[in-house]
């Protein structure tokens, strides 16, 4: 495909998804759905981007990514409960305390899973660099172990996820129902995206990572200890998934040990649609999936997953490697 068409396809696809539903849905419902759609997109972006970045940079297929997501949810669950016990910020009516405890829980999840990620990369992933097949095998084993570890530490049952008081409910703006939490999720998601983007585009570290996505061997030859970067990127990608986990749990208000499995498929589809190894692709893909899912869920309740698969099929037929090339 010539370069010009490379650019207009993803843009027109997103615009189409944004605008088509207006033909079928009333504007007010449209706004509500769009907001939930973007929120879902943000959460999917967090999980998918970690996976995509790890694949792009380390060339590693990490099927345990979903388990890291679940760990994130559980750590933020515990952190939240713990902090709330001491400070009561979760239950208070002050928006500031609510936001503070929420952010702290997410940060705890991010740090905790980053550490878990470093351990995983060193022990489980390093031995299987270079063989996608064995990565699949060994990460499946790691996923089982991580999931079971959750069951051991926290118990095998579903738990309700505590939500800060002021996040519940919605506002009524000009007759449009705007749920509170999705908006907050969008804001946090955007901030995280900007942080990742800035690091990638404006720092030396990010520059080396982007170079490594294109050509890891050359980066090594230039004197950079690529193994340290591998560990770092793996930890960062896992941390993103963890934060996504914490936010997702707050969204659906519950956690269960197998929650990784449900989301990983969506994240996988988002990563494939967007193009593995591309941050921009993850954002665009996530928005497409999030929005289409919500619109279709409203119009044809059972068809929501179908639209996601359909999107996958269509995009892979036109652009087998995904919308954006590696490293963008």
């Amino acid at each position, binding site marked *: 495909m010539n370069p010009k068409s490379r650019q207009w396809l993803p843009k027109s696809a997103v615009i189409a998804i944004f605008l088509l539903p207006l033909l079928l849905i009333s504007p007010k419902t449209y706004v509500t759905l769009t907001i939930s759609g973007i929120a879902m997109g943000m959460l999917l972006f967090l999980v998918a981007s970690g996976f995509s970045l790890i694949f792009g940079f380390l060339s590693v297929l990490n099927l345990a990514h979903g388990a890291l997501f679940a760990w994130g949810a559980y750590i933020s669950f515990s952190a939240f409960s713990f902090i709330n016990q001491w400070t009561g910020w979760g239950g208070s009516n002050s928006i500031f305390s609510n936001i503070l405890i929420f952010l702290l829980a997410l940060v705890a999840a991010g740090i905790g899973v980053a550490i878990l990620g470093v351990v995983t990369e060193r022990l489980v992933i390093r031995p299987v660099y270079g063989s996608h097949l064995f990565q699949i095998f060994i990460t499946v084993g790691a996923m089982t172990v991580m999931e079971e570890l959750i069951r051991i530490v926290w118990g095998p049952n579903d738990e309700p996820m505590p939500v800060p008081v002021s996040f519940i409910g919605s506002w009524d703006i000009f007759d449009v129902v705007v749920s509170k939490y999705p908006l907050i999720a969008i804001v946090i998601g955007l901030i995280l995206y900007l942080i990742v983007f800035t690091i990638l585009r404006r720092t030396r570290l990010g520059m080396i990572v982007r*170079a490594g996505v294109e050509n890891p061997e*050359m980066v090594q030859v230039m*004197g*950079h200890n*690529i193994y340290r970067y591998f560990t770092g990127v793996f930890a960062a990608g896992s941390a993103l998934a963890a934060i996504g986990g914490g936010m997702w749990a707050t969204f659906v208000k519950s956690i269960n040990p197998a929650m990784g499995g449900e989301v990983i498929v969506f994240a996988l589809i988002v990563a494939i649609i967007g193009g593995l190894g591309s941050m921009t692709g993850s954002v665009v893909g996530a928005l497409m999936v999030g929005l289409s899912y919500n619109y279709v869920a409203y119009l044809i309740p059972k068809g929501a997953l179908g639209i996601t698969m359909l999107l996958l099929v269509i995009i892979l037929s036109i652009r087998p490697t995904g919308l954006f090339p590696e490293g*963008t």
Partner: protein
Amino acid sequence: MEADLVAEPILKVEGIHTFIGKHHVLQGVSFDVYPGRVTVLLGRNGAGKTTTLRSIMGLLSPSQGIILLRNQAIQNMRSFDIARLGIGFVPEDRGLFNLLTVEENFRVAMFQEDKSTQQRLETILEIFPDLKRFWKAKAGILSGGQKQMLAIARPLVNNNELLLIDEPSKGLAPIVIDHLIDAIQKLQKQTMIILVEQNFYMASSLGNDFYIFDDGRTVHKGQMEELVANEEMKKRYLGISG
């Protein structure tokens, strides 16, 4: 000239055997690189020249043999450590980061972004003015010749004493090759170069010493002037006639 030959070689490669998978690609490679000289590795395709460079650079681990850089054994070191000792590498495919700008390509190559590196950069940009013009452009849009210039210029920002260059003239038009030869001749003053080159014109213009590879072994060595005159050797090992 005489005095240089008596000096110690900075890089000594002795008896290297390297396997790629099951293939015994290098079956005894030995050569020395002297300061201030361009050493050219010649030979047919598949003779093991690129593999040799990669072995020196640590991308492949030799199963036997020694590589000494100033009497330090580097054959088992990791690539990034070898690079930091002062060896730059310009691979056959150039190894450019096409999605990064020319500026970023240089910055990734820098060991540290300090004053002396900056100064070296300015000197380099004088030798390769095109790169200054396209400073903020993505490396992918450069022409073939410019890409080659960038590939060679990049490792020079560090105080590298040895540069490994693999087939730089590949796919370039003759006039661009002349440019390249010019640029490399300017570089030669500060840096030792090991050049792998199929293009005999380029090899003979730049090279001082040569080594001929055949079937994974170094089979002949000598001074470039001798080789230029020796039709029989050229035909036998390089397939060049006339």
